[in-house]
């Protein structure tokens, strides 16, 4: 068990370098307390310093954005002669300007403020929710309250213990007609989302009364009550929200937030960036970005222009977060250089008007695609080239995958992305390498066998890769005959290494995509591997070995491929150990993807076959970008620490991606090198330059803008627990390969312990018993526990090495939305689906059952439950399940009649069946790969894997959720 020996004494078990300096927890405490005291002193000192300056001057005219609903003022520093806001304003206010009545609200000048400051009805909400804590969260209010300048000596507040900040109390009654509610009631009845409410009621009465609602709303938003509400994890059992958690919104002025990048594409673990590295270290939360840069988007503005406007010094693409100094000059938001606006940019093609550079699509969209002119090409754009490398040894033929592959390719051959230049080629291999000459003019495909696998050569270099359009018939002939060609083969050896070398030779002049289908451990020639797994050690609680590659052959080959713009996608269909840890390198460093179908067999495992078919269809037809590079730029002061995903890092901020596909995700760890003192926002820009399958060079640019904050409570308020979990998972994978699995598990546990204890010591001032977490991090321990029980990191449960390594690969390169389900599956009760609250998509009604906690306690014998674990969906049927469900959905008369291996729901013409199928179909549509459905009864073999996903329950080798919480609490209070 990891948790039992995870005392944070061992420096090596932390992810961050800074944490490694943490001494055994005892000695640390005084210094942490000291920190928190300093912190308090600092925040209270900051209050008078930072707020007054910008407000009286800027607010009346251009800072209107700050008082819009949902917008929250950032703690501002006095600098800013040239912030984006004041400068943007002259060019036209954002479309949704505030109602004019709001205008007079902003200028809070000097003494009147003390009286006029409205009582933020919910400024004290984080406090109010938990009575006893009132005084401590008073602190957040204090430093979060960016809005009005606080009158009086700040120091005074600290000794003061009312639940409302002074200056708010006396004015609260006058304009809140309703008597002040009990704080807890307030919290309950007025969720955060209703914050903008005050706008809807027209302010009654003159002057001060007009002021109040907007300011109330403002201070409300500024304190982000919901995110920082203190939750005692040990007491609140039902933490899981009924529906999937949306990504938190950065605390930006609304007009910026509205155009900010979609969180599905670009997401940060901390939506508020700390000002200094020491502040970040104190929060003990990882700072990083999660990207899904090539995601299929339904709406993507594409710009064709001969000049792409970029910063002259840092080469940043112009984006919505730059500031226009005047008509002719713009200031880069990454390096702050002032650039000229080119003449061409003055004309706006959308509105066909001149002189409005800030209305150009480039400045209105955070995600945009450019069609690049020729200076973005090192060579003419390559054609789409697809090479398929197929294992045809005895073992491969046994699994029967060739039929499925050939059929899928035949079905989709016209849907392969490409243009008239598209080329395809085929190589098969067992102990020898077989090439196929598909030259136009041949009557049938010609097979050429090379048996000299030590020194591989191409028999006819120019006719092995052929134009798909010209030779389509030959290709189809080949695909039809391939499965029968090797039916009787007795060859058991596999010379994968040589086949890959041959393929590399074939593709290196053009670049392209290799799809490798492998069914066994390569055991001949170069790159031969030995079985390293000891099946008896699968369940051992000791350290798991052999997570790192056995040879660097595949890595070196992948780097060669990467240099020649060749990506290798690996399909592993095997029932035995295949050493994915070594083989996976070929895809990892060449930006390919790995698909793994354990125990694939055409007869014995129909679920896998369906999965393979569907995945293959998606794989063959999805978008693809060739010879791509992705550069991630960030505001000066921030720097990139580590990348996660499948690629080769070519320089500090540049990833080389021979191919890019829409299902690939990336993660980046960031560090703060210089203090971000005088900045209000920082920006990150990911620019992906690729060649489309039609031979166009394109650049897809995503820009994300985030506020900078200087207090710990703000950092915690902006924490995105899902993104943090995703990034920690990537870091843990790295750690388990470079150090050991137990080390990685300890580091994950410590990540939750450290951040919660930092929250307790630095943000909360009153120490009350229990395990306290801010509301935004309330799921953090649960997700960490889920990670510890995930296939990749679990110990004590029998896990095949390849399964484990594959889970690790997936955690690293899947976009966050998909990997989250693998970490924490979703459980729904499905036998009583109703149309209540259902979604309506394309005239299909999709019921939305609520999410349940992953514990057996939630299951009942009278019901049926659906568990969506990302790559697989389980439908569990209780023994006494409602007979209507059985007959209407499954089409069986009784529980006993449910067949053992059921992978399909029958298409019955009943309302229940339609609802269930619609719901499952909707779940499947949300992801690019195909999760197979397993219908399991209480006695099925699959039940074990279903129950393993019950994360909150205790297993023989792992703690239950409550025990884990107790452990975390114990470590914190040590």
């Amino acid at each position: 068990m990891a948790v039992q020996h995870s005392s944070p004494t061992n420096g090596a078990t932390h992810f961050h370098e800074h944490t490694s300096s943490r001494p055994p927890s005892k000695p640390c405490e005084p210094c942490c307390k000291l920190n928190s005291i300093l912190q308090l002193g600092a925040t209270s000192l900051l209050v008078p310093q930072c707020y007054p300056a910008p407000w009286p001057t800027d607010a009346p005219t251009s800072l209107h954005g700050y008082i819009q609903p949902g917008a929250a003022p950032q703690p501002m520093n006095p600098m800013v002669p040239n912030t984006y806001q004041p400068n943007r304003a002259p060019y036209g206010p954002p479309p949704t300007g505030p109602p004019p009545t709001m205008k007079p609200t902003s200028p809070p000048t000097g003494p009147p403020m003390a009286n006029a400051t409205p009582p933020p009805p919910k400024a004290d909400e984080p406090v109010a929710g938990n009575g006893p804590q009132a005084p401590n969260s008073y602190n957040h209010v204090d430093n979060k309250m960016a809005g009005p300048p606080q009158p009086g000596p700040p120091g005074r507040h600290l000794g003061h213990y009312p639940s409302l900040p002074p200056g708010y109390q006396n004015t609260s009654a006058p304009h809140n007609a309703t008597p002040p509610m009990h704080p807890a009631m307030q919290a309950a009845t007025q969720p955060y989302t209703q914050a903008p409410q005050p706008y809807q009621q027209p302010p009654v009465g003159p002057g001060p009364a007009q002021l109040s609602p907007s300011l109330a709303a403002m201070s409300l938003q500024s304190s982000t009550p919901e995110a920082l509400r203190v939750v005692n994890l040990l007491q609140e059992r039902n933490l899981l929200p009924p529906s999937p958690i949306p990504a938190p919104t950065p605390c930006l002025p609304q007009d910026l937030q509205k155009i900010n990048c979609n969180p599905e594409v670009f997401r940060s673990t901390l939506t508020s960036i700390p000002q200094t590295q020491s502040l970040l270290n104190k929060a003990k939360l990882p700072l990083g970005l999660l990207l899904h840069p090539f995601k299929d988007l339904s709406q993507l503005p594409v710009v064709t222009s001969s000049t792409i406007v970029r910063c002259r010094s840092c080469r940043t693409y112009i984006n919505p977060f730059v500031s226009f100094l005047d008509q002719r000059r713009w200031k880069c938001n990454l390096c702050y250089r002032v650039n000229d606006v080119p003449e061409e940019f003055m004309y706006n093609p959308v509105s066909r008007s001149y002189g409005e550079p800030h209305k150009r699509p480039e400045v209105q969209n955070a995600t945009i695609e450019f069609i690049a002119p020729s200076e973005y090409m090192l060579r003419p754009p390559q054609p789409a080239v697809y090479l398929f490398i197929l294992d045809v040894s005895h073992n491969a033929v046994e699994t029967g995958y060739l039929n499925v592959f050939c059929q899928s390719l035949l079905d989709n051959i016209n849907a392969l992305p490409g243009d008239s230049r598209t080329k395809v080629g085929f190589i098969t291999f067992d102990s020898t390498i077989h090439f196929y000459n598909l030259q136009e003019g041949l009557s049938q495909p010609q097979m050429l066998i090379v048996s000299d696998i030590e020194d591989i050569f191409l028999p006819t270099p120019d006719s092995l890769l052929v134009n798909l359009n010209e030779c389509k018939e030959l290709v189809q002939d080949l695909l039809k005959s391939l499965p029968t060609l090797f039916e009787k083969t007795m060859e058991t050896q596999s010379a994968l290494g040589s086949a890959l070398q041959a393929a590399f030779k074939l593709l290196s002049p053009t670049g392209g995509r290799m799809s490798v289908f492998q069914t066994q451990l390569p055991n001949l020639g170069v790159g031969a591997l030995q079985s390293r797994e000891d099946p008896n050690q699968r369940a051992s609680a000791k350290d798991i070995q052999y997570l790192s590659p056995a040879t660097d052959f595949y890595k070196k080959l992948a780097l060669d491929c990467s240099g020649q713009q060749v990506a290798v996608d690996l399909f592993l269909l095997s029932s035995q150990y295949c050493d994915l840890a070594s083989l996976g390198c070929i895809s990892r460093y060449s930006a390919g993807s790995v698909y793994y179908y354990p125990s694939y067999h055409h007869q014995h495992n129909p679920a896998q076959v369906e999965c393979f078919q569907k995945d293959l269809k998606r794989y063959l037809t999805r978008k693809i970008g060739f010879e791509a590079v992705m550069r991630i730029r960030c505001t000066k002061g921030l720097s990139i620490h580590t990348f996660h995903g499948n690629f080769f890092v070519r320089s500090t901020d540049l990833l080389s991606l021979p191919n890019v596909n829409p299902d690939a995700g990336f993660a980046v760890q960031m560090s703060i090198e210089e203090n971000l003192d005088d900045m209000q926002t920082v920006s990150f820009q990911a620019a992906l330059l690729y060649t489309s399958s039609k031979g166009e060079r394109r650049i897809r640019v995503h820009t994300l803008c985030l506020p900078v904050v200087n207090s710990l409570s703000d950092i915690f308020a902006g924490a995105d627990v899902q993104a943090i979990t995703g990034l920690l998972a990537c870091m843990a994978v790295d750690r388990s390969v470079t150090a050991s699995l137990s080390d990685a598990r300890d580091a994950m546990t410590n990540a939750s312990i450290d951040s919660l204890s930092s929250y307790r010591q630095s943000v909360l001032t009153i120490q009350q018993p229990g395990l306290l977490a801010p509301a935004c991090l309330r799921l953090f321990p649960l997700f960490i526990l889920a990670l510890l029980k995930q296939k990749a990191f679990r110990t004590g449960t029998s896990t095949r090495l390849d399964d484990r390594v594959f889970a690790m690969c997936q955690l690293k390169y899947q976009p966050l939305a998909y990997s989250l389900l693998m970490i924490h599956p979703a459980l729904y009760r499905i036998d009583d689906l109703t149309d209540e609250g259902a979604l309506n998509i394309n005239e299909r009604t999709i019921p939305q059952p609520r999410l349940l906690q992953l514990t057996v306690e939630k299951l009942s014998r009278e019901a049926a439950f659906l568990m969506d674990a990302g790559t697989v969906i389980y439908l569990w049927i209780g023994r006494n399940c409602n007979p209507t469900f059985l007959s209407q959905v499954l089409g069986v008369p009784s529980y006993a009649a449910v067949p053992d291996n059921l992978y399909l729901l029958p298409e019955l013409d009943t309302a229940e069946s339609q609802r269930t199928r619609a719901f499952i179909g909707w779940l499947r549509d949300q992801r690019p790969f195909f999760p197979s459905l397993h219908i399991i009864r209480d006695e099925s073999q699959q039940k074990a894997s279903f129950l393993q996903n019950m994360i909150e329950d205790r297993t023989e080798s792992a703690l239950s959720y409550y025990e884990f919480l107790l452990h975390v609490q114990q470590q914190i209070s040590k």
Partner: protein
Amino acid sequence: MAFTFAAFCYMLALLLTAALIFFAIWHIIAFDELKTDYKNPIDQCNTLNPVSDPPPPSCVLVRGARGVPGPSGSEGARGLVLPEYLIHFFFCVMFFCAAEWLTLCLNLPLLAYHVWRYMSRPVMSCPGLYDPTTIMNADILAFCQKEGWCKLAFYLLSFFYYLYGMIYVLVSS
């Protein structure tokens, strides 16, 4: 005053340390080049690791084409890690033979470090230390740079120590 074996050892060590100082400077510059995007990590690792077969023509070409000033001299292309370790090991053995125990003790920690460093290198089929896929990781890059500076300091100090040791041996005997 007599020319003893110990004196010879010191003289030899003096010369070799001068070479090692050069190696250390070269090492620092190489990592700085990586950090400032001046070079492709694959090329850089090929030059840092001893290359058993001649480096692929492409990377030589690139280096030549860009006209990198830097220390890509004739020795550079052969890789410097292993020679450095061997040289250091060699004069440790010499000091052992000459029974210069104090000097040997001063060098032992570095010798042990070299052994540990080489044992914990990434999986590689050829001799060498640096893996182009992990070298760009900020932690590893920072570590390598720090290693370079520490070694430079160590070799500089030991250079003067050997000078002193040589004179001392020459004078005292």
